[in-house]
């Protein structure tokens, strides 16, 4: 798990979500529980991959600044926070301690 140790929730991928890499510019996330699809660009895919083992907002922002030249300083934390909230709301991500994970998913994680 990647975290800065600050008091931010840690975001985790919902292991039931299927990621289909479309091309170098992004991917498609499919949540079979809600039958919803989310198209993500390279930045979104980067964030998604950080959440595989868990990551909090500060670590994500730091990673984005390091990996993307165009990342702007001031607005990024709020933008990422909004983006994460949307992914959580639609069941693509969970928050540590508050994951909505099925028994099959837990089994598969093991």
């Amino acid at each position: 798990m990647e975290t800065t140790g600050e008091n931010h929730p840690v975001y985790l991928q919902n292991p039931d979500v299927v990621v289909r890499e479309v091309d170098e510019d992004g991917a498609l996330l499919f949540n079979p529980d809600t039958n919803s699809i989310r198209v993500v660009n390279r930045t979104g895919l980067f964030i998604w991959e950080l959440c595989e083992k868990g990551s909090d907002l500060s670590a994500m922002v730091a990673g984005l600044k390091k990996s993307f030249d165009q990342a702007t300083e001031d607005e990024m934390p709020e933008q990422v926070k909004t983006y994460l909230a949307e992914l959580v709301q639609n069941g693509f991500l969970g928050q540590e301690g508050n994951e909505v994970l099925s028994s099959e998913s837990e089994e598969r994680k093991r």
Partner: protein
Amino acid sequence: MAALSDLSTAQWHEVFERLGALGIMDATLTGGEALIRTDFFELVDSIIANRMRYSLLSNGTLFTQALIDKFKTGKRFQRLNSIQISIDGSCAKVHDSHRPHSFDRAIRGLRLLKAHGFPLTVRVTMHPDNVEDLEATARLLLEDVGLPSFTTNEAFPMGAGCGNEGTTCLTPMRQLEAMRVIAGLQARYPGRIGAQAGPLVKRRMFAEMEEARATGNKPTRWVMGYLTGCGCVFSKVDILHDGTVVPCHVLHRLVLGNILTDDLGEIWRSHPTLKALRKRRAIPMKEVPGCEGCEWAEFCNGSCPGLAHELTGDFNRANPEDCYRHFIEETGGIHAL
């Protein structure tokens, strides 16, 4: 219960693992009757474990309260896209004429599913013995059972059914009659009767062909003048009971491989037959054998390649069952409505 050539439970588990690994999102279980397999829910759970959703096509006869309860276990209900039940008539006499001894059980199953809030669709397959019953069928489904909608199709000649075309398929005159009845029902039940094929779709397409020919204005919803009648090969393949992979159930003679021994991803990306099926959209109708001199070629799309292949042996032909020139010769055309 499974026929000797059906894949075993373990083999289906392997199939679903392969599909899941490829990022497949939806699986549709059909038959025969899929519910007859005693391992049905094991297969559903395998689909769920491999991060897919599923749909079921059924004759509806096997649904009981006990079966409903099983569907409510785990994520079986949550991951269910829909259950499609076949109802071909308003009474046993009509429905059972082509689906023997099944009407009462099918309707009981339908009502049970409806009462328990299942995502339901009903398909009415039209044939020579149920056109006159369609109004009563619509009343049963939409008013009595209370479904929001149903869809229609028509029986078509395929496989062993090719020898029974006279008793199973609509003649052009019966199609015209079906179009007339459906038009009346659509006026009575706006937005509640749909179709992806069959008389309802033909009526709309034939009318648009007439309109385009008369005005020069072609619709934007579909492409006229080329073999564009099918988009299935861009979004799905069928896996038969024994693992054989085919482009779709209508193109069941075109074997692409076997799901257990061949790489489905490679088949999807590179199989010459699938590539050829996808390229048929670029073939102008006026170059299609049998359609060269047809005055409607510029306005036609050749319809289903599966039936074209079944009836002519070549999927790059037009489906003779949906030929508007033939329809006009037999009925006088859509204006006869």
